[in-house]
């Protein structure tokens, strides 16, 4: 066991864990942040997507030793006003109907967050490409793409 230091949603954390422990398990079990979901455990579904230094990654494939010193962002950090209100991207998902069963939603939101932070716009093909690593079985992606386009065209 060693201690790893990184930040999660802006707050510094110290985690005592084996270096190869999955970031997903550290977030969910050690830090109690269960918003990040596990769908397949092998990097196929994207449900566990989080941002590490701004890049969307599958947290089931990232050992905690790799995030030493990094900034990690999860779905719990997306709300506005200190967590009191939905952020613009979340609000767009709510209004467009981009979340149905909700299990892919945290990962989908983080992939969309990375896309918007990289300056992504309202182009449908670009949005499809940005979320191609995130599987959704409920929506046919239509309203997810719509929601991301709304966010891209508004307050982001």
């Amino acid at each position, binding site marked *: 066991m060693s201690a790893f230091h990184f930040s999660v949603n802006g707050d510094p954390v110290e985690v005592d864990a084996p270096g190869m422990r999955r970031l997903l398990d550290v977030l969910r079990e050690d830090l109690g942040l269960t918003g990040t*979901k596990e769908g397949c455990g092998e990097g196929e579904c994207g449900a566990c997507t989080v941002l590490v230094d701004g890049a969307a990654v599958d947290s089931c494939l990232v050992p905690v030793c790799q995030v030493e010193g990094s900034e990690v962002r999860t779905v719990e950090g997306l709300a506005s006003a200190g*967590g009191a209100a939905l952020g613009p991207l979340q609000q767009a998902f709510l209004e467009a109907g981009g979340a149905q069963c909700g299990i892919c939603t945290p990962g989908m939101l983080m992939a969309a967050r990375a896309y918007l932070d990289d300056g992504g716009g309202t182009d449908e093909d670009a949005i499809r490409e940005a979320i191609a690593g995130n599987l959704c079985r*409920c929506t046919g992606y239509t309203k997810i793409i719509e929601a991301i386009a709304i966010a891209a065209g508004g307050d982001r």
Partner: protein
Amino acid sequence: MTIRTPPSRTTTPVAPRRSAPDALVVRRGEIAPGRARGAAPLRREGPSKLTGEAKYADDLVFPGAWFGTTIRSTDARARFVAIDLDPAFDWSKVAVVTAADIPGDNIVSLISDDQPVLVPVGGEIQHHAEPLLLLAAADRETLRAARRRVTVRTEKLAPEFDPLASDHVFAHYEIAAGDLDKGFAEADLVLEGTYRVGHQEQLYIENNAMIAVPREDGGLAVHGSLQCPYYIHKALKRSLRLNDSQAQVVQAETGGGFGGKEEYPSIIAIHAALLARKTGKPVRMIYDRHEDLSATTKRHPAIVTHRTGVKLDGTLVAQDIDVVMDGGAYCTLTPVVLSRGAIHAGGPYRCPNVRIRARATRTNTPPNGAFRGFGAPQVEFAAELQIDRLAEDLGLSPLEIRRRNLYQVGDTTPTGQVLRDSVAASEVLERAAEAAEFEGVRARTTASRVRRGGSGIVPTSSHTTGPDRIASGIGIALAWHGAGFTGSGEVKLASVASVELGADGRIRILTGSTEMGQGTKTIFPQLVAEELGVAYDDVEIAPQDTAIVPDSGPTVASRTAMVVGGLLIKAAQRLRAQVEERNNGQDFAAVYRDDAVTHGPTRIDQQFEPYPGVHFDDATYHGDAYPAFGWAACVASVDVDLDSGEVTVRDVVAADDIGKVIHPTLAEGQVEGGTLQAIGYATIEEIKLRDGRYLNDRLATYIIPTSLDAPRITSILVEAPLASAPHGAKGVGELPMDVGAPAVVAAIHDATGAWVHDLPATPERILAAMGATPPTEPPAGLPGRDAAEDVEAAIEAPIDEGTDPRPDAPTDPLPLRGPGPDDSRVDDGWHEK
């Protein structure tokens, strides 16, 4: 074998007739008149899902919980000889549960008592993923180590994988109308075809998960991902010997179901409960994706053969249809899946002379079960391809042959049901065709195919594969889908839903209907608020906990909005009337809070009452199979790479008549999601088997459409209200699943000139159908081409009553077959989706 009689002349198209003059089309984004107040409300549990606060089963924390796991067979069929626990391992830290630890019946309670909770030592293993024993430990490392120290000894037995050869029949039905011989004698053309479809995995993104928690009263609470709390409640009571209050089932937030969490969660719940009882601790049974894919239910593979007689003008005069479904190792819901399949097998077309024979048999593969569409997608794929092939032979357009045969008000179905109202086959077909410019596009794609034909450079192929290698095609499909439970299912269920005005002045809905993404928790408060004349936010919904809510029937069969929504409207009407009456006729909204203070709580329990004039005879299979049907049309546009056989589905127009649109955004979401699931079924989703084991049992190998595979989907919602439902709604969830696959395969034909008879239409099958490569293997290990005689022989084979394979089975097992005059067990309320 295919018999083709080429037509000698063509006929002129006839104008479409309109069948449901009161049908209304709701354009995208518009609010259904008279139902939603102002803007449709936002998803009730949306904010918690969007912030990560929503608690799915694996997110729930129970201090001191142990981890459970299942040791499964690796044989398709075998005698279970012994369990060896390595004596060198410290077993004091591990709980081991075998069949001997089951206090009640070793049966997963469902239609037939054939599936054990755990195979007993000495018993017979029926499929490769069959649960044999259970382990639990306080931490995952100990559990993993213990797993490796268990050896299961078995003696292999000869397995059966061919549903046509299997002599164990789970159910069989025959539906007949008119005079088949007379019909074929009148026909100008007779066409035969055999169609095969394989397994499909529901692939909810949240795997199955259950946590059992011992209670102080000796009972057990089970929290999990599930569709039907009372199915699990019933199964737990029976296997754990619990009474109604000792067994408690609580739905956690559920990450998708699609039918896959209808019946399978019962066995996981029992497993978790057995371990919890043994350890005295909460026990977590959280499946990973590999276990979920290997062990849980899939859509039934099927072989469907058609022999169809038509007149030269395209009028159907005879349909002789055989359906054989592969049930897998245990009965599960197979009789009702097959029943829906049989009733829908002819497609949404009137035909005076029909015979439909359907049979489902046992194979030594994991049991197949409920999946969106529930037997209808398999048979409607076959029916639609058959209609398209008839159109081609007659020189009619695919649109035109459908116009000439589709059901209108007053037509009679093969079960003798007269379609009295809410018939919108014509509306959905015309709307979809119009929006997709079907005939215009088809004229261009046909011209392009003709230009390309005969110039090919691929050996034995007639297709150019030079710069012009991408061919475009367009296809159309039409379907019907019986609304709610089949036959007398709803009457037997006798569901209850309640609305309560609490002493604290809060209005609360109590139902066992679950939210799994489709919008239950949004539309129920919406319907009740509308009826009471109060704000949406003033109506709460109680948690789906069997200790709190009544049994509203399972959340399946697209019945939630239609049936349970209808019950809630009636309950709200009664509550409003009671409160207004005792308050001198003052408006409910103005007085209900004071009324609660004065009169205390008021609760209205509304029980299902049969739809007026709907009668079905389970013994003869005659009558009103459903109170009404929903209608769906789909137009798919595809590009096919003639070199590689790769298909891109570019655009889909889906038109669905759902009776009444309660919430346009949620209804569109159902259409869009169902359409993409159907496209996956059509093109890429296939389970490969070897020796009865699924080979692609990981998400890296079982693939579903991504955002890049998904077409642009345009949904058109059509309303032809069901008069006998208070709100007119007929349900939406399953409709799009019935039409997507035949539309895509028709479009592939339009592009390539080749008919793919088997699903999925993979590049390999497309190239083989084009004659560019040798024939491919059929899906799901089903028998190959020219199987019509095999199917006929299987259908004609004598029915031996199914016998319970377990050595400790009762000596006089109840028959497992479908309804007969003396068989009241089948269809006792089990169903769907």
